C-alpha cells in the first residue's frame, strides 16, 4: 500500500498531463492523421489517465486515509496558490468519474463523429475539456479551481458551438458562455472574500478551520457567492437557461458537458468548500432551496419537451437540483454520490439519444420516432436500464443516491422536510417524464418520416452504452443503507464537517418506500398514458396548457430576452453611440486640430538652416533673459 501511495504522489500529475498531451498532439498533428487515429489517440490519452487514477486511488478505496498533496511547481506563492494537486477521496471520486465516463464518451465519439470534417479538432477539444476539468477537481487551491473553472467554460463554448456554421449552435455557445459569466462573477467575489480574510487561497489553510477567521455573516456571504457560481455552472434557477440551448453541440459533447464534467463543477465547488458552508445555516438553506426549486421546475418543463435531447437537458437540470439539495442539506457525501451515479446514467442517456439521432439521420423530434426498440435493441435496452435508473427504481443506481439525498433532507428536519416534499414530487415527475421519453422513442407505432432508415449503431458506439448500462445498474451498491462504503470512503475529505446522515431504521424504510412507490407510480402512469394513443391524447388535451407552457420552457427565455438582454442591448447601443459620437468625435477632432495646426505651421519648416538659426538664437535669448531674471 505504501508503495501505491508513493506511486500516487509521484505519478498523479500524469492524470492531468495525459489528456493535455493528447490535446497538444491532436492540435498540431491530428488533422494530418487518417480519421479514426486522432480519436483513438484521444481515447487512449483519456483512458490511460483513468488507469493511472485508478491505480493511484487503490490505497484510498478502503476509506479512512487522508489526502496527499503534490506540488508540481510554484505558481503564485504570494497568494498561496501553487500548482498543487490534492489527491483525497473527494478528488479521487471526481477524477475517476471524469476520466472513466470521459473515456467511454471519447470512444463513443469515434463512431459518432465519423465523417465529420473537423474530426480531429473535436477530439482536441474533448481532451482539453478533460484536462480542464481534471485541473478543477485536482486543485489544492481556489485559484487553480478557478483556472479549471474558466477553462471548462471556454471548452464548453468551443464544443457547444462546434458546428459553428449553424446559427443555432453559435448562438447557444455564446449564450452558455455569457450566462456562465454571471456565475463566474459570483465565484470571483467569493475568491476575493476568501483571500481578504485568509490571505491565501490554499485549501490547506482556508478549509481546515475557517471558523477561526470567519464570522457567521461572512461565511454566509462567501457561501452565497459560491452558490451563485454553482448556479451558473451547474445550471440552477435562474441561470439554467443556457443548458437546454447547449444541446446544439454534438451529442457526445452534451454527454460530456452535462453528465461527467462541467455542470458538476458547481456541486463539487460547494462540496469542496463544505467547511465554509458548515459555518452558515443560512447559506445551506439557500443552497437547498435553489436546488429543490430547480429540480421541480426543470422536471415540470421536461414533461412537455418534444426534443429527444431537450427532455434530457431539463432532466439534467433537475438532477443537478437534487445534487444541490444534497450538498445544501449538508449531506455532502450524498450529493457527491448522486453526482457520480448521475454522471454514469446521464452519460448513458445522452449517448443513447445520440445513437438514436445518428441512426435516424439527425432527427431529434420524438413525435417522429417510436418503435425503435426492435430496430435498435442494444440502444433500446440500455436506455431502458438508464430510464429506470434515473426514475429511481430499486435496485438501480439512481434509487440509492436519490433516496440518500431525500432521506438526509428529511432527517435534517424543520424546513428541510419541505425540501424533501418538493424532492418527492420531483421524483414522481422524473419517473413520469423519463418513461414518457422512453415510450415515445422506443415503443409504440413507428412514426418516422418515410426516408428514415433506423439501424443499430456500430460497435464502437454500443460498447460504451453497454458498459455504462452495467455501471448504471450496479454502481449504486457502493453506497447502500446497509453498507455505506462510499460515505466511509469520502469521510476523510469531510472530517471536520457536521455531515448530515441519512435516516436510519424504520424512518429510512418509510422514506425509501414513499420514494419507491412514487417512482413506480410515475413510471406506471407514464407507461399507461403514452403506450395507448387514446389515453395519450386525452391526457394531452387535459393538461394542454401545462404541457404547451412546458414545451416553451414557460417563456423564461423570452422573459430574460425582454427584461435583461434587451435593456442591456439598449445600454450597449447607447454606449456605442456615445463612443462613436462623443469619444470618437473628441479623438477625431483632436486629430483634425493637430493636422490643421501642422498645416498652419508648415511654412516654419522651410529647410533653410539660417531660418532655424534665427529661432535658435531667439530661444537662447529667452533663456538668457530668464536666467537673468531668476538672478543667476
Amino acid at each position, binding site marked *: 500500500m505504501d508503495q501505491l501511495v508513493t506511486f500516487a504522489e509521484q505519478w498523479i500529475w500524469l492524470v492531468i498531463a495525459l489528456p493535455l498531451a493528447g490535446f497538444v498532439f491532436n492540435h498540431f498533428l491530428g488533422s494530418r492523421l487518417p480519421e479514426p487515429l486522432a480519436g483513438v489517440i484521444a481515447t487512449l490519452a483519456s483512458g490511460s489517465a483513468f488507469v493511472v487514477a485508478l491505480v493511484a486511488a487503490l490505497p484510498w478505496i478502503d476509506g479512512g486515509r487522508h489526502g496527499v498533496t503534490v506540488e508540481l511547481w510554484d505558481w503564485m506563492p504570494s497568494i498561496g496558490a501553487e500548482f498543487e494537486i490534492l489527491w483525497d477521496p473527494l478528488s479521487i471520486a471526481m477524477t475517476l468519474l471524469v476520466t472513466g465516463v470521459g473515456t467511454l464518451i471519447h470512444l463513443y465519439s469515434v463512431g459518432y463523429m465519423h465523417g465529420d470534417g473537423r474530426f480531429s479538432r473535436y477530439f482536441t477539444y474533448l481532451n482539453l475539456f478533460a484536462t480542464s476539468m481534471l485541473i478543477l477537481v485536482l486543485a489544492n487551491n481556489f485559484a487553480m479551481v478557478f483556472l479549471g473553472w474558466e477553462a471548462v467554460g471556454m471548452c464548453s463554448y468551443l464544443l457547444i458551438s462546434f458546428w459553428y456554421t449553424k446559427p443555432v449552435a453559435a448562438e447557444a455557445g455564446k449564450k452558455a458562455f455569457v450566462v456562465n459569466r454571471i456565475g463566474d462573477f459570483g465565484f470571483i467575489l467569493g475568491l476575493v472574500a476568501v483571500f481578504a480574510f485568509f490571505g491565501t487561497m490554499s485549501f490547506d489553510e482556508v478549509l481546515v478551520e475557517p471558523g477561526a477567521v470567519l464570522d457567521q455573516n461572512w461565511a454566509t456571504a462567501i457561501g452565497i457567492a459560491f452558490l451563485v457560481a454553482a448556479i451558473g455552472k451547474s445550471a440552477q434557477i435562474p441561470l439554467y437557461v443556457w443548458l437546454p440551448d447547449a444541446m446544439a453541440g454534438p451529442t457526445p459533447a452534451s454527454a460530456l458537458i452535462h453528465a461527467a464534467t462541467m455542470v458538476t463543477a458547481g456541486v463539487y465547488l460547494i462540496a469542496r468548500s463544505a467547511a465554509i458552508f458548515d459555518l452558515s445555516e443560512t447559506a445551506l438553506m439557500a443552497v437547498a432551496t435553489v436546488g429543490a426549486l430547480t429540480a421541480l421546475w426543470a422536471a415540470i418543463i421536461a414533461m412537455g419537451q418534444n426534443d429527444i435531447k431537450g427532455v434530457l437537458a431539463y432532466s439534467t437540470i433537475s438532477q443537478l437540483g437534487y445534487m444541490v439539495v444534497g450538498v445544501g442539506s449538508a449531506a455532502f457525501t450524498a450529493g457527491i454520490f448522486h453526482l457520480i451515479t448521475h454522471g454514469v446514467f446521464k452519460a448513458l442517456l445522452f449517448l443513447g439519444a445520440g445513437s438514436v439521432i445518428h441512426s435516424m439521420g439527425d432527427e431529434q423530434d420524438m413525435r417522429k420516432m417510436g418503435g425503435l426498440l426492435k430496430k435498435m435493441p442494444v440502444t433500446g435496452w440500455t436506455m431502458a436500464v438508464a430510464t429506470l435508473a434515473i426514475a429511481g427504481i430499486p435496485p438501480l443506481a439512481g434509487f440509492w443516491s436519490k433516496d440518500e439525498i431525500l432521506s438526509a433532507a428529511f432527517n435534517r428536519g424543520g424546513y428541510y422536510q419541505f425540501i424533501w416534499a418538493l424532492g418527492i414530487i420531483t421524483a414522481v415527475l422524473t419517473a413520469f417524464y423519463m418513461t414518457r421519453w422512453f415510450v415515445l422513442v422506443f415503443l409504440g407505432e413507428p412514426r418516422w418520416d418515410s426516408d428514415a432508415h433506423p439501424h443499430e449503431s456500430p460497435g464502437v458506439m454500443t460498447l460504451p452504452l453497454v458498459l455504462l448500462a452495467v455501471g448504471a445498474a450496479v454502481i449504486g451498491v457502493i453506497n447502500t443503507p446497509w453498507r455505506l462504503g462510499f460515505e466511509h470512503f469520502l469521510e476523510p475529505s469531510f472530517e471536520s464537517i457536521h455531515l448530515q446522515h441519512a435516516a436510519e431504521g424504520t424512518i429510512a424504510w418509510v422514506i425509501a418506500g414513499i420514494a419507491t412507490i412514487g417512482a413506480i407510480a410515475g413510471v406506471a402512469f407514464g407507461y399507461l398514458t403514452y403506450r395507448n394513443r387514446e389515453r395519450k391524447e386525452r391526457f394531452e388535451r387535459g393538461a394542454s396548457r401545462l404541457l404547451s407552457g412546458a414545451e416553451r420552457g414557460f417563456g423564461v427565455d423570452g422573459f430574460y430576452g425582454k427584461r435583461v438582454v434587451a435593456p442591456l442591448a439598449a445600454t450597449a447601443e447607447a454606449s456605442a453611440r456615445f463612443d462613436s459620437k462623443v469619444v470618437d468625435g473628441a479623438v477625431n477632432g483632436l486629430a483634425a486640430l493637430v493636422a490643421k495646426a501642422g498645416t498652419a505651421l508648415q511654412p516654419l519648416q*522651410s529647410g*533653410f538652416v*539660417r*531660418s532655424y538659426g*534665427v529661432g535658435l*538664437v*531667439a530661444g537662447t*535669448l529667452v533663456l*538668457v*533673459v530668464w536666467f*537673468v531674471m531668476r538672478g543667476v
Partner: protein
Amino acid sequence: MSELVIFVVAGAGALAGALTLILAKHPVYSALGMLGTLFSLAVLYVSQLAHFVAAVQVVVYAGAIMTLFLFVIMLIGVDQVEDTSETIRGQRVGAIGVVAAFAILSGYLWLSGIFSWEVVGTGTEPVNGSIEATGQLLFAEWVLPFEVTSLLLIVASVGAVGLALFKPRKAEDE
C-alpha cells in the same frame, strides 16, 4: 597701463577681424579676418598670463584649423563670390532683430554691473598659466575628461575618414 594698451589694440584687432570675417564677399578674406581675430585673442590670453592656452590657440587654431579651412576653401572653389542679396523672406529682419536684441541684452547686462565683481587674483598672486601648472591641473583633477577627449578626437577622425571614403552615387538622388 601696458595692459590697457594691449587690451585696446588687441581688442580692436579682434573686432576688426571678426567684422572682416562676416562682411567679406570672398571667403579667403573671411579666413584672413578670422586669423587676425585668433591672433589678437592669443595676445589677450598672454596678457592674462594664460601662456599655455595662448600657445595652443596659435598652434592649433591659427595653425591647424585655419589651415584646414583654407584648404577646403581652395578645394571647393576659391573664386566663389557670394551673392549677398537676401532670398529668404523675413530672414534679414529676423536676423537683425535677434542680433540687435542680443547686443542690447549684452549691453544691459554690462551696464547692470553683473560682470564687475571683486577681482581677487590680481595684486596678490597672479594665476600662473604655465605649462607645468596647467599640466598638473589637467592630469590630476581633469584626467578623466582629458582621456574622454582623446576618444572624441579618434571618433571625429574616423568619422571624417568615413565621410571622405563614401562615394557619391551616380545620379543625384532627388
